[in-house]
Every structure is written in C-alpha cells, then in structure tokens.
C-alpha cells in the first residue's frame, strides 16, 4: 500500500468536497443538461427535495439523472434538507431508476450527501428499509448505471444511490463509512482530531481507487471544482458519456453478472485452512 495521506492533505479534500460553492446536481443540470425534465415525487408519500431526478438528453443519449442536492445558500440548504435524503428521496430515486430500466435509459446518479436524514419521521417511515431496497434495486437494474461522487459520499445514505456498474469520483470528493468528525469522536473522544481520522479512513478519491473500491478519478480544475463550474460539470459529463459507451458494449446479462461479481468480491480478509 502506498504512503498514507497526511492529515492535512486528507482534510483539505474533505473541505473541498464540502465547499458550499462546489457544483451540485442542479448546477450540472443547468450547465450540461439544457433539456432536463424534472420528475417529482415517490408516489407513496412525498417529494424529497434532497434528491433531484428526471429525464435528460446527454449527447446523443437519453438518460435518467438522479442526484443529491445540498443547496448553496442557507435558504437553499434548508429547502433541500442539506442534501440529507428521507425515505421518500430514496423511493423517488428507485422509482425513476425503474422508469429508466423500462425505457432502456441508462441511469446516472450524482452523489453528494453527508448522509441520510436522521429524524424521527424518516426512521419511522422506513429509512433503513428504503436504503436497503435502493441498494437492491440499483444492483439489479438491467440498464447501464454510472455513479459520480461529486462532493460528499456519506455512509449508507450515499451508498443507497452509489451502487452502479461504474463508480467515479471527482478528485476532491470523499466517500466514507463515517464522517471524520464522528470517527474522531469515537476514537479520540475529540472531534478536533477529524483531520487524523480523515487520513485513517482513506476517504479521498485517489486512495479509494488504489484500494479498488471505485473505478476512476476525474480531475478537478486547479484550486478545486468550485473555481470553475463549467469546466468541472463538462468534464464529469464527458467522462459519464465515455463510461456509458463502454458499458453499452457489454451484453445486458453479462453486465449484470459483472456488477454482481464486483460487489460480491468486495472486502479484504484472510482464508485459513484450519477450522
């Protein structure tokens, strides 16, 4: 394994990943998907504004796009629950992914969340089951699927929308089982140790590529994605198109088999001979 990233280096990526001016799903839509048609609601309970989804043309393709939306200003952040999805958000994502499957449209997800919404109603509305069912549904989709982690990939709330044939990450995005602050509080009883925790968790894109948990890293403009929205969003959508092109060349049943195999292989363990 390569040299461990320094706490300062890891922490810088965390801060860039969370930067409030970083391009978010709606920015990708505005900059790169001019004919985007938003579809709303989970058909069961409500419409979660933490998750945006709809139909879009991307180059010569038609796709279903689903992404977390955190919001930039405080008012936007409140409107979008800071990108923390409730069960209805995951159910909307599932419903739209199924729509894509029905009409043979590839499904692209943009992940940017600190995690699922931790609230009483969300829990009682089946938050855990919604996440589990979403993982299950995305694992079984018959159309090509690509996830791009564009900012924060926080725990199960991110994974619910990050099971795909290919998972790409922007250079300064992060993907982690726990927030560095939460990890620091557990290990050192001190949230100020978050930079050390960030390094220990190896949550930065390049580190996750190295250990084989993601498929590619998309470079950002110098200074970070927030310094140039147009360059970032175009680059990401260009990579998405290349990746979809690759996936479309694989026969559907084989693509599904490979997706299963990829997830069944995940993990590091030893196998001993003795019982």
């Amino acid at each position, binding site marked *: 394994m390569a040299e461990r990233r320094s706490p300062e280096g890891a922490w810088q990526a965390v801060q860039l990943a969370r930067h409030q001016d970083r391009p978010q799903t709606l920015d990708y839509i505005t900059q790169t998907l001019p004919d985007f048609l938003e579809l709303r609601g989970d058909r069961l309970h409500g419409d979660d504004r933490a998750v945006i989804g709809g139909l879009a043309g991307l180059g010569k393709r038609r796709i279903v796009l689903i992404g977390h939306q955190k919001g930039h200003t405080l008012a936007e952040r409140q409107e979008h629950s800071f990108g923390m999805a409730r069960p209805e958000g995951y159910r909307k994502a599932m419903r739209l992914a199924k729509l894509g499957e029905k009409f043979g449209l590839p499904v692209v997800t943009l992940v940017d969340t600190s995690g699922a919404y931790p609230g*009483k109603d969300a829990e009682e509305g089946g938050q855990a089951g919604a996440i589990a069912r979403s993982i299950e549904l995305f694992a079984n989709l018959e159309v090509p699927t690509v996830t791009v982690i564009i900012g924060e990939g926080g725990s199960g709330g991110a994974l619910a929308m990050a099971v795909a044939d290919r998972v790409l990450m922007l250079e300064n995005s992060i993907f982690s*089982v726990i927030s560095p602050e939460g990890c620091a509080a557990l290990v050192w009883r001190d949230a100020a140790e978050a930079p050390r925790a960030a390094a220990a968790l190896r949550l930065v894109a390049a580190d996750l590529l190295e250990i084989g948990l993601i498929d590619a890293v998309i470079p950002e403009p110098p200074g970070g994605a927030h310094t140039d929205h147009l360059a970032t969003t175009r680059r990401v959508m260009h990579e998405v198109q290349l990746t979809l092109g690759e996936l479309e060349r694989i026969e559907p049943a084989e693509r599904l088999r490979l997706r299963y195999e990829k997830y069944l292989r995940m993990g590091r363990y030893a196998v001993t001979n003795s019982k």
Partner: protein
Amino acid sequence: MAKYVTIQVPRREPPPAPEAAGEQCKKCGASLEKGELERNLRVCPHCRHHYPLPSHERIALLADKSSVSFVGEEVQAVDPLEFVDLQPYPERLSKAQMQTGLSEALLAARCDVAGLPTALGVLDFQFLGGSMGSVVGERFHRLAQIAVDERRSMVIVAASGGARMQEALFSLMQMAKTVVAAQLVGRARLPYVTILTHPTTGGVFASFATVADIILAEPGALMSFSGPRIIEQTTREKLPPGFGSSESQLTHGQVDMVVDRREMKDRLAQIIRFLMGGGTRG
C-alpha cells in the same frame, strides 16, 4: 416451545454474561435465582424482558440437536488499512475473540430447523458491537451460496451497532455485498428470513436485515438507522419512549411480527415450511 440443547461450538464457551450472575432483573427488579435466566433462554420470567443471547446459544435455540455444522470459520479478519487507532485493530480483534470465544461477529452454520434444511447466521453484539466488516460480509456470502447450492432457506439473526469503522469503506461496501448475496438466495426462490434482536442499527439495519422476505423481531429490541442520540443531537427532536422498538416498528409497517424468543423456533419453522411448500401447521 423450542427446547434448549447443547451443541458443539467452535473454540471455547464464552464467559457468562454479567446479568447471568445477577440476582435482580435489570428491567423489572424481580429477584432471580442463580441460573434462572439461562434456564429461561435469558428471558426474565417475570417481565419477559429479553436479555442478549450469545450466538452459540441462539444457534442451540433455533437448530435441531446434532444438525449443526459451522461454516465460514476459515474466513478471518485482516487489517486492510492499518487503521490508526488508540488500540490497533488486530488487538481489538484478539480481545473480542478472547472475550466471546468467537472468531468473528457472524457465526454461520448449516443446520436443520425442525427438520427443515437451513443456512443460519447469527451476529453477536458482544463481538465488537456486532459490527459488519469484510469477514461478516464474506461469511454471509458463503452462507448464501451454501443455501443456494444445497437448497436451504436462509435465516439471519441480527444484532449490530452498524459498520466496522476500522475497515472504513470496505465496511460500508459490505452493505452492498450482503444485499447482493441475499439476492442469490432470492433468485433461487429460497426463503430468506431475518430475526432482528436488540439492537439492530446502522448499516446492518439498512442492508441485509431489511431485504428479507419476512422480518421477525424480538420484543423490546431497538432498531434504528441513525441511532436515537444522533437524531436528538441533529434535529433536537425529543424522541418518544419506545422509539424504534420492535413494537413501534410493527405499527410503522417495518417488521412482520414481534415474536417471543421462547416461541421463535416454532414460528420460524412454520414460515419456512410454508414457503418451502408445506402447510402452515407442523
């Protein structure tokens, strides 16, 4: 009622749980004779409070005598990220192994449940909080493959604090891995039943625990994805008593039934027998 039996377990017996030696029920305060809890499957005979059941006792409770053979023991934990911690991860693992007599948080076995061939997995909260690392995921996967290959139903007893932080993203990915592994069982049209016990939280609750065909819960178990403390801290909501309990999950439509531990084997057998093509009666 299912009969308590003694079975062969890998490694040695764990020490008795602290409450086993206690004289009073922690819940209702009733005085208990020495050994009374153990004789009652660790359920208080006065208030029906369900105390944690070590995984080998759980297997003895659910599996037919002499039908058990353990699987997946060959899969052992490593420290994939050389996780920086106050106590190194390998030390935490050996300490947990010493304390519980288990090799990992998931104990998996082939067995019969009332004569019905079953692939049974039991998470033990005493082993690093029943946390899901790569070994739990891979043992789950192997167990699912055994279920498919040998036409067994799959039954998982969950108790977990969630992710195995020391394995970082490898741990998170076990959510996807176990859900996909459970699909193998589903695609083979074999029953997949989970039994959720206290506590079932975090990544386990939001993965294999909730994609089962049928979800059973023990009385009074806490089930929560985020955890009550995080919810109260983040949203400043005051949570009502009984929040996330089995009984509350039942009213909110998240579990099929709440089943007393002393009736669990009969209920489980009834479900498996029915789904495998028998009737609902034994």
